[in-house]
């Protein structure tokens, strides 16, 4: 089974070409001299220079990062609590409704989530801006965090927590000293997921932002509607490189951790 058949080789090659060629073209043409994005006119980095001088884009990027940091951190705290309550909380009144509210936002069309939150903010007279986007992003991202964390909580051995409690830990100490270190990788990947979702979101941010707060996706969307532009290509290239470096680093770190864990287990077996 280890030899690849030609069919599999061809389907993998074509598949990954389809996934990557559009992004490669985007990156190459961000270094194009010409304003016409489809005609190559020589190498240049001038669009990056123009991007760095474009105040509107820089402001939007700053707003986006602020929103993403606040909302993903809040979402991680709330989502972890929600996952803990769902997996360890036992039965309580309204549990079905609670788990429904955790899963529903995952499949909800963004236009509906955005519309409903906007109507709420207007209903209670809250001025739209950075704060309302943070509230909106926290709400849908916490559900993703809670799904990631609860899948980790389900698989881990409960007797470890019970042992800590028997040995005199308070429940809070048992959570901090035993549970949290074990679920930490899931909490971190939940935070990363929440952060990316927030960076990425156009639709919900468009509904819940006011004139004072424009995020990068909103800015990109309104620029892109007018057609392709080399400046947006440069911006996309920067964003693609950040994600690529992040994903590769994360996967190397996990690989390293898995290898270390294996070595430790082997050492423990020998001892």
């Amino acid at each position, binding site marked *: 089974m280890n030899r690849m058949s030609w069919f599999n080789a061809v389907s993998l090659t074509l598949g990954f070409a389809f*996934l990557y060629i559009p992004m490669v073209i985007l990156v190459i043409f961000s270094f194009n001299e010409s304003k016409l994005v489809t005609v190559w006119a020589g190498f240049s980095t001038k669009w990056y220079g123009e991007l760095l001088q474009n105040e509107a884009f820089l402001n939007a990027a700053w707003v986006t990062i602020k929103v993403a940091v606040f909302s993903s951190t809040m979402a991680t705290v709330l989502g972890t609590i929600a996952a803990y309550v769902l997996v360890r909380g036992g039965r309580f009144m309204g549990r079905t409704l609670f788990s429904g509210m955790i899963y529903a936002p995952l*499949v909800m069309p963004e236009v509906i989530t955005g*519309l409903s939150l906007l109507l709420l903010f207007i209903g209670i007279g809250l001025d739209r801006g950075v704060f309302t986007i943070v509230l909106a992003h926290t709400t849908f991202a916490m559900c993703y965090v809670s799904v990631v964390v609860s899948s980790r909580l389900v698989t881990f051995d409960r007797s470890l927590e019970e042992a800590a409690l028997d040995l005199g830990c308070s429940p809070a100490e048992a959570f901090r000293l035993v549970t949290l270190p074990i679920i930490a990788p899931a909490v971190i990947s939940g935070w990363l997921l929440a952060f990316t979702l927030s960076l990425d979101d156009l639709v919900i941010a468009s509904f819940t932002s006011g004139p004072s707060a424009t995020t990068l996706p909103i800015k990109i969307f309104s620029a892109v509607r007018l057609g392709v532009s080399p400046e947006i290509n440069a911006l996309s290239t920067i964003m693609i490189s950040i994600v690529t470096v992040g994903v590769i680093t994360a996967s190397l770190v996990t690989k390293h951790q898995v290898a270390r864990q294996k070595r430790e287990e082997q050492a423990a077996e020998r001892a």
Partner: protein
Amino acid sequence: MRRFVLIAIPYVWLLALFLVPFAIVLKIALSDAAIARPPYFPQFDWAEGIAAFIAELDFENFVWLTEDDLYWKAYLSSLKIAVISTFFTLLAGYPIAYGMARAPEEWRPTLMMLVILPFWTSFLIRVYAWMGILSNEGFLNQFLMWIGVISEPLTILNTNSAVYIGIVYTYLPFMILPVYSALERLDGSLIEAAEDLGCSRLTAFWLVTIPLSKTGIIAGSFLVFIPVLGEFVIPSLLGGSDTLMIGKVLWEEFFSNRDWPVASAVAVVLLLLLVIPIVLFQRNQQKQQEAEQ
């Protein structure tokens, strides 16, 4: 007491920012549009009491949705686009997942990462990348004219074909991952047994591999179908003026026409449309979990 607080924090948050907003959408869907701020009627007024308030609500907007065929057409065409593009995503995703599951074991983590990487990249940017490829002077037309397949550029951008390409491209990882995880678990000796018993490779694939990867296929299809039904970014960037999708209609109803009650009614109907696939998806996931245990 501590347990109560722990449950209450996320509970109250979701009630206030998820459930209550829905109640508001439903209420506004039953209201009438008005030239006021906010632009709908009736407003809730404690002095007049609840009975008087409820008496003002009606189903006019929903009747309007059935009368104006724009909405009907938009719902139907969203359904059609979602079904067709799910099918094409499966057609493109299955061979990739299959190739990954049959690849040498030491390659698989890298291949996995290559599938997940686009998922972390901005959705908007991935859709935007196709605008430069599909336009009249775009790379696809340049390429096709260069190899001599066509002499005149094809119009692809701002048509439904561009929408299909965009959907297949952006949702491909959602299809590949569940199908791959189903195929990876598949026991290779079953296929060998089928071949030993006289099946050709193709029949063995059709009779053994496909049925055993069914849960992955179903999960992937719903993961594509459900979000595509309410998709907004792809039809508005790649589609043309004749591309009708309900997410786009809702957006325009709200931002351009500023008809909040009709936009809310559109949202309520879209939600009802999604209930069936979501319930089916949930059931498939449960079956899969039971099978694993």
